[in-house]
């Protein structure tokens, strides 16, 4: 296939995409004007939707559907004469040959193909919109195989006929609690930073928890109209161990009677402005101060509403609402603690409409739990609490598809994130902004697991800096990503020169990502802990969203091509050095290679303007020893000892980095008898080398280099995908295949390369084996923060604790 053919294919796709957009637009006109978002942006991918599920609560409807998403992926393929099936005749190992590649012909071919992936869509909207939404769904539902819609929630019964009539689907009711638990297990397992503790007056108020590898057992306190307290043992085992009739319905019902305020949100708003001490009888009202011999402080509530019987004073609505909120939250908190204690559980999650992200209720519940357990139990809340029922119902209906055998990832581009439901926001305003809320989960093709070499998986936190907590760093990185946006847009457009709509899509990408950044400025907690990794991942998700699957594919191709031409020269130069000189040159080469990072603005600016910038130029830029973090001498000493059994190398950039930096280094390891696993990204991210690109590059190198070739043949050099499509690395979510190989090969050295993988993430990751973390700091701000300057070098060599 030629490049021309690729272009044609892409153009054809473009037409099709435009057609799709038109269809959606025409249908939009029929929809209720009051829906603020265009419906095709809410109910995405309806065309291929199947397996519907719906959870209708007292005021909100949550719709779930499974859909296949057709999106473009960049595929690389070796041209036939370099293809695997017809390998070049192997050359003698003593000789290193140069394969003549015509300058105008690229190394491998890039094609953009349509790939179908599975995605779960969840949409949350007010019950008032249910009819309009059902109409829209009916109008866009192409797939006719679907016969049944799974339903749960108190409103499922009420709307049964409407749903059956509108959609022509049979409503199949599922048990509410079962669905809730299923949903809860699902989010806890698949969404990192799902759970958080709420800390009032802290900045930010959300403290996200690292997901424990074993999520069981836990206590779920669901506060709907009443309260259910459920102990969850395992995936299928749970028991309702108790409950209380004093719940959200009591707050609402009693609140409506006392304050004549009808809406739940308004009641909460009243409560947030009230003073409960005017209504409640406090310890100090009885004792005059604290009751020390009891350890009861004066401001504790002795009797809720106790003052109303003893004073003739009229209470304000605000004060009564506040007192009521305290009374109910404290009571629930107390019961939850009693149950947690009885069942010896320390993980207690709260959910239900009473909580639903309301800071006031989260605060009062947290306060109560802290008080009653003296800090032994933390009140945990869930980011996707509102979706649990819908997720669970959906999973019930999709059991034949075995959704639990896959790993899923939250799609940041398609998900709304946690809304700021600050009580300061007027309830009407808040309602409108939260009218439609979306969650999208991508099915990952492989199951993701922990790296078996993590010292303690339950305490592993990939990210080095939590930007939700570090306001200064947050400010910097948000601005940094915003500043870099123009460059990314430009690169995206340039990557698809034949596509007419590329500019338009790139513009949409810009808007979407900029909007995400703005949201994160105000709500850094929207997608869990904000980190450089999440900012990078969000950008990748947004690029994919607008069909820029791999904006750097051509850049990577060119750079790989150029670098390959220098490979033999570099290897020859290294071979002429003494052992010690060579080791240093290898490390330096690895570091110089790592300078070539399009993700770093300082570098991409240079690369955009100076095409002559090469390996040698990069070496010049490097900091001279001693480096910012310099464990080189220890490493050298180690190399004089027995060789490692097997090294796991998480690679970074394509081009010079992988070819002239990593491969010579790997070659050295191999020649000493160390097996090497090269772990590369499963999907594209910036100019990082993907596993399919790496396969081709390796093949080319093998053709030139006997050491690599032999290692491949003898299965001593393995190329394995990491399961990630991020410039960063989460060692708790790695491809199961990789984890298996790492285990089987008795890996005793882990090398992590690059800013994204070794600095932004994993800098503090503790492993059970030796590790090398190396990177060049290509960001002046970060370098300064670490106490160095731009192009400072981090070379961290760590031994596992004895």
């Amino acid at each position, binding site marked *: 296939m030629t490049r021309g053919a690729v272009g044609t294919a892409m153009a054809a796709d473009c037409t099709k995409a435009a057609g799709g957009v038109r269809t959606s637009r025409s249908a939009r006109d029929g929809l209720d004007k009051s829906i603020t978002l265009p419906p095709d942006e809410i109910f995405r991918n309806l065309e291929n939707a199947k397996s519907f599920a719906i959870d209708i609560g007292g005021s909100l409807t949550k719709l779930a559907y499974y859909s296949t998403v057709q999106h473009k992926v960049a595929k690389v393929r070796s041209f036939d004469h370099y293809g695997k099936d017809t390998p070049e005749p192997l050359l003698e190992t003593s000789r290193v040959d140069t394969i003549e590649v015509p300058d105008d012909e690229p190394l491998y071919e890039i094609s953009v193909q349509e790939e179908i992936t599975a995605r779960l869509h969840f949409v949350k909207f007010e019950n008032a919109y249910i009819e309009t939404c059902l109409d829209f769904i009916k109008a866009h539902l192409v797939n006719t195989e679907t016969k049944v819609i799974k339903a749960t929630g108190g409103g499922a019964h009420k709307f049964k006929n409407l749903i059956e009539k509108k959609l022509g689907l049979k409503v199949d009711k599922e048990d509410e609690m079962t669905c809730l638990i299923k949903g809860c297990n699902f989010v806890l397992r698949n969404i990192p930073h799902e759970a958080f503790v709420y800390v009032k007056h802290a900045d930010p108020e959300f403290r996200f928890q690292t997901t424990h590898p074993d999520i069981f057992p836990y206590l779920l306190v669901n506060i709907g109209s*009443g309260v259910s307290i459920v102990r969850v043992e395992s995936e299928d085992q749970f028991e309702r161990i108790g409950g209380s009739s004093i719940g959200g319905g009591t707050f609402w019902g009693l609140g409506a009677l006392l304050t004549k305020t009808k809406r739940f949100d308004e009641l909460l708003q009243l409560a947030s402005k009230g003073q409960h001490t005017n209504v409640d009888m406090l310890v100090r009202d009885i004792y005059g101060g604290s009751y020390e011999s009891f350890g*009861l402080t004066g401001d504790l509530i*002795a009797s809720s509403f106790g003052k109303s019987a003893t004073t003739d004073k009229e209470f304000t609505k605000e004060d009564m609402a506040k007192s009521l909120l305290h009374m109910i939250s404290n009571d629930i908190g107390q019961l939850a603690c009693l149950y947690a204690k009885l069942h010896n559980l320390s993980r207690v999650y709260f959910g239900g409409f009473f909580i639903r992200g309301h800071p006031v209720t989260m605060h009062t519940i947290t306060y109560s739990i802290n008080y009653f357990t003296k800090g032994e139990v933390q009140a945990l809340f869930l980011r996707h609490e509102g979706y649990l029922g819908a997720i669970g119902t959906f999973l019930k209906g999709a059991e034949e598809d075995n959704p639990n055998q896959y790993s899923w990832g939250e799609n940041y581009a398609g998900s709304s994130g946690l809304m700021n439901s600050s009580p300061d926001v007027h309830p009407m305003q808040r309602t409108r902004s939260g009218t439609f809320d979306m969650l999208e989960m991508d099915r990952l093709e492989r199951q993701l697991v922990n790296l078996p070499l993590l010292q303690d998986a339950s305490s592993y936190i990939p990210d080095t800096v939590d930007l939700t907590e570090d306001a200064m760093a947050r400010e910097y990185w948000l601005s940094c990503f915003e500043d870099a946006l123009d460059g990314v847009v430009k690169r995206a457009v340039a990557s698809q020169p034949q596509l007419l709509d590329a500019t338009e899509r790139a513009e949409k990408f810009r808007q979407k990502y900029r909007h995400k950044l703005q949201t994160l400025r105000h709500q850094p907690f929207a997608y869990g802990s904000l980190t450089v990794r999440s900012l990078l991942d969000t950008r990748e998700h947004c690029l994919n969203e607008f069909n820029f699957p791999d904006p750097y594919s051509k850049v990577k191709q060119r750079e790989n091509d150029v670098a390959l031409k220098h490979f033999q020269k570099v290897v020859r130069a290294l071979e002429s050095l003494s052992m010690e000189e060579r080791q240093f040159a290898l490390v330096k080469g690895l570091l110089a290679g790592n300078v070539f990072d399009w993700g770093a603005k300082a570098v991409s600016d240079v690369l955009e303007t100076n095409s002559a910038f090469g390996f040698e130029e990069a070496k010049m830029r490097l900091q001279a020893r001693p480096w910012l973090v310099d464990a080189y001498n220890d490493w050298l000493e180690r190399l004089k000892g027995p060789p490692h059994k097997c090294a796991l190398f998480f690679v970074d950039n394509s081009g010079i980095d992988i070819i002239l930096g990593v491969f010579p280094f790997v070659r050295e390891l191999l020649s000493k008898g160390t097996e090497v696993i090269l772990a590369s990204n499963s999907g594209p991210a910036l100019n990082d080398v993907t596993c399919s690109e790496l396969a081709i590059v390796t093949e080319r190198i093998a053709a030139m280099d006997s050491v690599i070739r032999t290692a491949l043949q003898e299965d001593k050099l393995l190329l394995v995908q990491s399961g990630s499509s991020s410039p960063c690395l989460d060692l708790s979510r790695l491809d199961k295949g990789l984890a298996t190989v790492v285990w089987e090969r008795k890996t005793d050295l882990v090398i992590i390369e690059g800013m994204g993988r070794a600095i932004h993430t994993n800098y503090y990751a503790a492993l059970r084996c030796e590790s090398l973390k190396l990177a060049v700091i290509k960001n002046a701000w970060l370098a300064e923060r670490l106490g160095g300057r731009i192009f400072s070098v981090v070379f961290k060599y760590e031994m596992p604790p004895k």
Partner: protein
Amino acid sequence: MEPVSSGRSMVVNGYHGGGSLQEEPEEEEKQQHQQQHRGKKAAGQQCQQHRQPQEPEAEKCRTGCSEQERAPSTSRRPQQRRESVKKNRPPFPWFGMDIGGTLVKLVYFEPKDITAEEEEEEVENLRSIRKYLTSNVAYGSTGIRDVHLELKDLTICGRKGNLHFIRFPTQNMPAFIQMGKAKHFSSLHTTLCATGGGAYKFEPDLRTIVNLQLRKLDELDCLIHGIMYIDSIGFNGCAECYYFEHPTDPERCQKMTCALDNPFPLLLVNIGSGVSILAVYSKDNYKRVTGTSLGGGTFLGLCCLLTGCSTFEEALEMASRGESTKVDKLVRDIYGGDYDRFGLPGWAVASSFGNMMSKEKREAASKEDLARATLVTITNNIGSIARMCALNENINRVVFVGNFLRINTLSMKLLAYALEYWSKGQLKGLFLEHENDLQNRKNHNGWDLSKLLDTQNIGHVYTINKTHQYSIKS
């Protein structure tokens, strides 16, 4: 966010001799009993003082009275015990008070055996107080004497007389203090025994304005000893303690008496304005497990706001005529019947006041319905917390006491029912009854509201008993 009970026990002034509800001939035996009782107390005290440092403060282990108060009485008691009770009899008037969160409870002993001499000696001030208290049933606009609770022909400290129970809202304490100043209470005697939170709160005012010294006694300590005391003396062979047999079956539900022969451990749920829950392992070894702010004060407070009523009696009366199912959302309202998956019966309340989310239902609910729902909500919640505490503390006997249960059969039956039902018969709710009027006892039979003892009296009786110790001490 923690409730504190309203004051429970009542203290007759600190100089009074040992009171007894027994007839005179049994006085000696009685005192023996008390001696034993004190012996145990001393031992228990030691044990607890030993224990205390190991207990984190937060455990809220209570020793009852402060050590300063108690220690001297323990050491000096033996000699003093030999002295005549009469010799130490303090001057009249004898009264004590319990200043709770909502109500002040005042007990006054009216001597009926006043000799002519005494009458002569009685200062004008004292006489006027006696006449004023005994000839009225209401004082000012809010003070009430509970005539039905009056204990007649009681012998305390060798004096025969009647014990009167007077209550007024705690909010009128300032007025009471002003009256004390105007009437020169300070000229009568210098120490007044008081308990309840108000004993702390109003102590400075009573000292500076009225010039009265307070002897503060711990309410929970008083309460526990009071229960043991009242149970031990019983009434003509009848037990003080009772429970409901078949509480889950309205047809067969009946009151059964039982003796607290071997009462420990027990969980004591004291429902005043708020609720305190104590795990009692022996007379002197107990800890406050937890409490809740949803108590009697919440019931009354919410009823006042929801129905416009103003007294506990009124609120209870309304509740007795209302229907909570119009206000509460039941399991069957949501699931159409039982929620079998979790063994929830259709009649169980799923959401208290849950029906009040709907405008139509709000309009359809009467004040009586609202009062009833409030009562049921508060009562069930107390039952639920008590049940969980009993499970956590591994105690299967739960004794409910407190002002909230005064003339409140509805709540008592509900508590008995809830405890039995949700524990599948593992837990038993016990209540205490105190015949307040020996003379009229035969006129009451079976289950009768008017016969229900104000459990408050348990505190009263004990504190009368307890004051005996102090009389000996001084």
